[in-house]
């Protein structure tokens, strides 16, 4: 049974794995294709163009800042005071230009050639962070005229320019529109990400493929679990059936498969159980028929062996009586009494022989359509001193029976009922029609039959009464079965007994087979 289970599991795995192979290839191709939609020269070109444009605008803005500083330096406010020996300059607040939409000017600082601060104009009263002296020194040492030092993180730009005749340095501090910085930084960030994607053109799609395979593995494991469970559901009942077949092979015809399935396997189990029951019934019937055949053979032989000497014995005794002259009246009286006893016993033996003979060889069935109720009523009339109640189903009409044997059946059952009916309570006969059967029940309220005797009551030579041959119910059962019917008994000690006969309403063939 394990091989079927393994085959089912392998089948499930194949169904799951095989599509995965082309699917993995397709997924890999799709991911690469999707990747190339976003990572391609045209996108890079566009990003670079955007970066270049932003750079141009940025350079222009810085240039504008430098030009603004140049204009400030050229103003009279600076040129008039720049050669002043005063350590500090008085600079008008108007020196600092208004915000022009590009720049927000925060302050101007003037340094002398020794890089000491001489003056400042600050907007808003809040001084911006000053440029460091190292940066100023570096600017001075580089020998260039002007520069813009940017601190984009804090949005502070320092335009530095040398004063005329190297009298010092002017520093204009301003901030750009934050949205411009934000957008240009965002554009650069996107370009960096694009570049990163380009560098991982192989590794990232591969990661997605590995992810797909890992998830597929998870699905595969789930499939194995489902396949194992499912295969158990299928092979479990089959295993039961195999076990049942094995038990039947060992001769255990009482084994029944316990399955609650509603599918074909459930049907198979149900039919298996029916087959087992049929085999057991067949076995029991075969045993019964073999036993009956043996009993009949014995009965026939006994009848034959016993019957023959009966007549010579009768004649001899009669001769003895006839030949006595009658001299001794006492002896003659004794002789007559003995003759009577012997004759009576011989008659009993003849009856016994007749029963044996009847059991051993019953004549052919003579079927003809008869009204059951009439036959039963005729038999009931034979017992005028016994209260017998008849409850007939009007649906029961004519059925084919052997008239004599049917009467004999009813007579045997009534005889048994009467003999058990110590309290002379009513005996009941009921008939009932069910589909293809007629059911006849004979019920008494007698002493009942012990349970341990019920299974043997239809066996030949079984009797609980003295003086009986024990063949009556055996003969009754045989006659019922010859009609294709069945007979059963239910009894309770102290309450009574019911014999139930079921006869088919169809035509009965030879040997009791129903046509």
């Amino acid at each position, binding site marked *: 049974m394990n091989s079927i289970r393994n085959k089912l599991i392998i089948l499930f795995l194949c169904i799951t794995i095989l599509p995965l192979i082309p699917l993995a290839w397709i997924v890999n191709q799709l991911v690469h294709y999707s990747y190339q939609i976003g990572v391609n020269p045209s996108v890079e070109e566009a990003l670079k163009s955007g970066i270049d444009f932003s750079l141009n605008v940025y350079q222009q803005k810085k240039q504008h800042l430098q030009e603004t500083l140049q204009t400030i330096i050229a103003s009279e406010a600076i040129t008039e005071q720049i050669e002043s020996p005063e350590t500090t300059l008085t600079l008008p607040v108007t020196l600092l230009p208004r915000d022009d939409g590009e720049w927000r000017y925060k302050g101007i600082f003037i340094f002398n050639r020794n890089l000491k601060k001489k003056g400042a104009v600050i907007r808003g009263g809040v001084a911006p962070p000053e440029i460091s002296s190292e940066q100023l020194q570096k600017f001075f040492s580089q020998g260039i005229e002007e520069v813009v030092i940017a601190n984009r993180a804090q949005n502070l730009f320092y335009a530095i320019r040398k004063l005329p005749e190297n009298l010092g340095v002017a520093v204009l501090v301003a901030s750009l529109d934050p949205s411009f910085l934000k957008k240009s930084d965002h554009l650069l960030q996107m*370009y960096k990400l694009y570049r990163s994607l380009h560098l991982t053109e192989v590794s990232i799609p591969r990661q997605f493929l590995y992810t797909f395979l890992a998830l597929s593995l998870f699905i595969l494991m789930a499939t194995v679990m489902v396949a194992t469970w499912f295969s158990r559901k299928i092979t479990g009942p089959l295993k039961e059936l195999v076990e049942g077949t094995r038990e039947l092979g060992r001769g255990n015809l009482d084994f029944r498969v316990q399955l609650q399935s509603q599918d074909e396997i459930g049907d198979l189990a149900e039919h298996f159980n029916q087959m087992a029951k049929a085999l057991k019934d067949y076995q029991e019937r075969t045993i019964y028929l073999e036993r009956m055949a043996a009993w009949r053979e014995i009965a026939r032989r006994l009848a034959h062996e016993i019957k023959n000497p009966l007549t010579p014995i009768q004649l001899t005794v009669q001769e003895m009586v006839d030949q006595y002259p009658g001299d001794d009246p006492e002896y003659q009286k004794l002789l007559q009494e003995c003759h009577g006893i012997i004759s009576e016993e011989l008659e009993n033996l003849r009856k016994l022989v007749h029963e044996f003979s009847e059991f051993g060889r019953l004549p052919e069935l003579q079927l003809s359509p008869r009204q059951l109720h009439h036959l039963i009523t005729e038999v009931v009339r034979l017992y005028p001193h016994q209260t017998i109640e008849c409850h007939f189903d009007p649906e029961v009409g004519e059925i084919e029976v052997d008239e004599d044997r049917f009467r004999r059946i009813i007579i045997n059952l009534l005889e048994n009922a009467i003999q058990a009916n110590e309290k002379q309570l009513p005996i009941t006969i009921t008939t009932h029609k069910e589909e293809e059967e007629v059911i006849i029940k004979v019920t008494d309220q007698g002493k009942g039959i012990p349970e341990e005797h019920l299974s043997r009551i239809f066996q030949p030579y079984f009797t609980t009464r003295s003086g009986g041959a024990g063949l009556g119910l055996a003969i009754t059962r045989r006659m019922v079965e010859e009609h294709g019917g069945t007979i059963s008994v239910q009894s309770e000690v102290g309450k009574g007994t019911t014999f139930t006969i079921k006869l088919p309403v169809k035509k009965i063939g030879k040997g009791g087979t129903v046509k």
Partner: protein
Amino acid sequence: MSSQSLLLAQEVPEISDIQVYQVHDSVKCSFRIPDLFSGDVEETLLSGLPVLIEERYLYQGEQNKTINTRIHKFRITYDIWEDLFTLEQASGFHQFPDLDSLTRWWNPREEVFLSSVSRLENVGEAFLTIRVRIVLLSRAEGEKLKDWIFHSQETEESLPTQNRDTGFTLNLNRLLSIFFRKEDVAREIIVQGMSPIPESIKKF
């Protein structure tokens, strides 16, 4: 998955002109990597991504047994807005106005200190292996890329209470991100060169 070099063979830089010599009590070397700042390296730098360079100097003796190791690390960035290249190392930083000046600084690498001369005392046959690892996409940048891939629906305008993702998409992203390791997203190039150590240095 290990990181891999994907440059075509002709684009891979090569180490050349390796020379090992003694300067007083020190062993030094010089070498060149002429095409170091070209191809993918140049494009990566110019995009604003940092490039990490790790120089590893190994003295190896018989059966490739490592006698000594020395490592120098550099981080090079390019500020697009200010058009300025910055090279950072343990001893400080240098700034270059253009790629050519950066290249001139690098090539040749001269008088790179390897060890004291005594380190090679009684060493038999030995050679110097220079292994340069050029990281184009560091783990940190790989992590940024991974975060961007799996959280690309979020924009700067989204508020913490806003969630434009469907629950399914978000969960799938989280699920996928489990399988991505930042080290697998990194990219690097490895260049290697070898030179025997002159006998004259070992016999001092």
